């Protein structure tokens, strides 16, 4: 790969949810953590799993499967928490597994085809085709829209 191509690439973290692969730009990713004890926060939407102690910082955790309407996550050894930073907000999302870090050319990203039905499409910013893989680019701002519960 030449440097000229690099400029048009976007580095992404690839993770698995259900049977699909999703990506988010690494610039938003602060780190990937293994599952630790999550403290439940009452009176919050079901996709808010609670909060964890991330090296002294209380960080909220959401279940991305549930958030995208793909059912409840089965927490197991492969499950990971991806810590995402958006502006001044830190949120951890639970994914089935974190697979890879990839460079994908920006021109391979296409907008979401509108024919696909379902709840999750609201949060999809685009789809990238890389060889035989189909990578779904998530719109993190919409996914992590701050919530006000119990009010």
């Amino acid at each position: 790969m030449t440097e000229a191509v690099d400029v048009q690439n976007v580095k992404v973290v690839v993770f698995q949810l259900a049977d699909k692969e999703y990506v988010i730009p690494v610039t938003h990713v602060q780190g990937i953590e293994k599952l630790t004890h999550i403290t439940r926060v009452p009176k919050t939407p079901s996709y808010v799993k609670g909060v964890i102690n991330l090296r002294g910082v209380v960080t909220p955790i959401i279940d991305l499967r549930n958030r995208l309407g793909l059912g409840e996550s089965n927490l197991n050894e492969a499950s990971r928490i991806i810590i995402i930073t958006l502006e001044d907000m830190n949120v951890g999302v639970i994914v089935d597994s974190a697979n890879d870090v990839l460079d994908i050319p920006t021109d391979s990203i296409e907008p979401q085809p509108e024919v696909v039905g379902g709840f999750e499409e609201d949060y999809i910013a685009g789809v990238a085709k890389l060889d035989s893989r189909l990578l779904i680019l998530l719109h993190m701002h919409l996914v992590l829209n701050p919530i006000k519960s119990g009010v």
Partner: protein
Amino acid sequence: MDTSQYLEMFIEESKEHLQACNEHLLELEKNPEDIAIVNEVFRSAHTLKGMSATMGYEDIANLTHKMENVLDEIRNNRLHVTADLLDVVFTAVDQLEEMVLDIAAGGNGKLDVADTVQKLHAIETGEEVPVAATTVEETVTVDSSNVQNWLNYDDYELTVIQQSLEQDYHTYEIYVKLREDCLLKAARVYMVFELLEKMGDVIKSSPSVEKLEEEDFDEVFYIALVTNEPKDDVQKKLMKVSEVTEVVVQAVTLEQLKTRQQDELSKVEEEKQVAVQTPEQTSETTELQPEKKEKSSAPKGNTPTSSKTIRVNIERLDVLMNLFEELVIDRGRLQSISEDLRNAELDETVERMSRITGDLQNIILNMRMVPVETVFNRFPRMVRQLARDLNKKINLEVIGAETELDRTVIDEIGDPLVHLIRNSLDHGIESPEVRKSKGKPEEGTVVLRAYHSGNHVFIEIEDDGAGINREKVLKKAISRGIVSEEVALTLTDKQVAELILSSGFSTADVISDVSGRGVGLDVVKTTIESLGGTIEISSTEGKGSLFSIQLPLTLSIISVMLVELGEEIYAIPLSSIIETAIIRSSDILNAHNQKVIDFRGKVVPLVFLEDVFDVPRESTKEEFHSVVLVRKGDKMAGLVVDSFIGQQEVVLKSLGAYLTSVFAISGATILGNGKVALIVDCNALII
């Protein structure tokens, strides 16, 4: 204005700017045509001028002002950069440095810069720089700067001076400097002249009287006065005129005047004449010296205090606080480990560590304390303005402005106080006519008071206004549906008064832009409660009201009681807990679908936390219940939990920007085992 708090910043920044000036001037010497460099120097000089004028260092401001003028001329291509010119500018920068260093060492930053100012002025007005021919002459010019040729007299004036001197009158040349931001210069000039004319005769002024009246001068003017008053008296009297920042009075002898005149007549003979003049001037200088020393010795008394403090960036303090919080968390963990292990030596060490961290906590929290003065400072002006807008006469008394509070609290408390003060001015204090008819003094008084008490800080706002009208408040509260008529009858005066803090309440018949639409006081209450504080009102109709705010000393580390609910641990702030109790199931009574207990003769509603928080588990039927009794103002509630764990100091953390305002949870904390526990917001649970 008290500028001492900015002194260190001023010194640091001045040094930086002077350094920049020096560097750029050196560059300019190499590239005399480069206007960009001149701009750089100009900018530094300009900033320095502004800062020093604000801080009240007139000499620095004066010198930089002149320097700026010269630089401006260069910038506009009216002057060319020459070595001589740069010499003078360099001298100016050197003198500025000297003054700044003097200030840093505790001095008053005074330095005789008249000579350099004159030179700069000469350059600016296009005159050649008087180049010192010999070193001897150089020293002479420096000396003579003490008696400067401020004024030139014509023959008639000289005769007047001569005659008055023969009659034992003194002649003084007076240098008067006005504040740079002086608005009514002509008025100040008039006041100065009036004063002088009482003491003697003004024989000359520069600029002329006409020009002074037209305000056609900068900040400085010179006057020649014939009087029999002593020199110091003249100076002191003139300093009494407001907006006059500097007055220098120098005595003039006939000989000096003559030599001066001769100087002008025969420049060839200059050297000799000046040499003759020297002995006299030395006597003059010695006369001036002690006075100067006196001046500078006074501020020097303050120096020890400034040397004992250092300036620390607030961010560093925050970092320190964060690190300390980590330590508190680890301390908690160590404590729980040592309890499990029951090793005597470990216990001892942990005990010791706990004590030391306790001391450390006090020190660190103290470092973050800021006097409430920083908030109170802006109120006198605000009150003055509002009083004028409202056509009321109001006197604001500020008491205890030195009381210290945690910085985080200080940041938040400003707005609520503004609301409360506005409220007092608008609704509390009556108009002068009403006050008069009630037999009160026309001028209303608002007292703003701050003081420490125990682990809390109290801020009170007291006015001697109309007080709260019970009937009026109740009528309004009922019409707004805040209370029912039946309830209204049972309320105490205090409870009625506190109704005005409810949302959607406004007693002002006319909605004014001063205290809004009654949303203000509601917001005040929420803000104060979010700070962990309380607000109380006591009011006597016709006499006035007292708003009392109670605030915790700090927000970051609080004492909590840890309780267990199923598998989960919650923390309840100790500040809202009255006591804990164990009750039997049979003691629980039912009243209007609400479970209550009879606690020490009071009916207290029960809140089952496991229901409120939907704790996931099979419901258990237990014989005994652990209850934490909490209060909010006069109201109480019993929080039913599974078991008590114990009391602990914890670090308050927010849930982050994603989870804002979760019901009945005010924050979180990290426990000794590294897990997160949620902090219960009792205020939300008591209705």
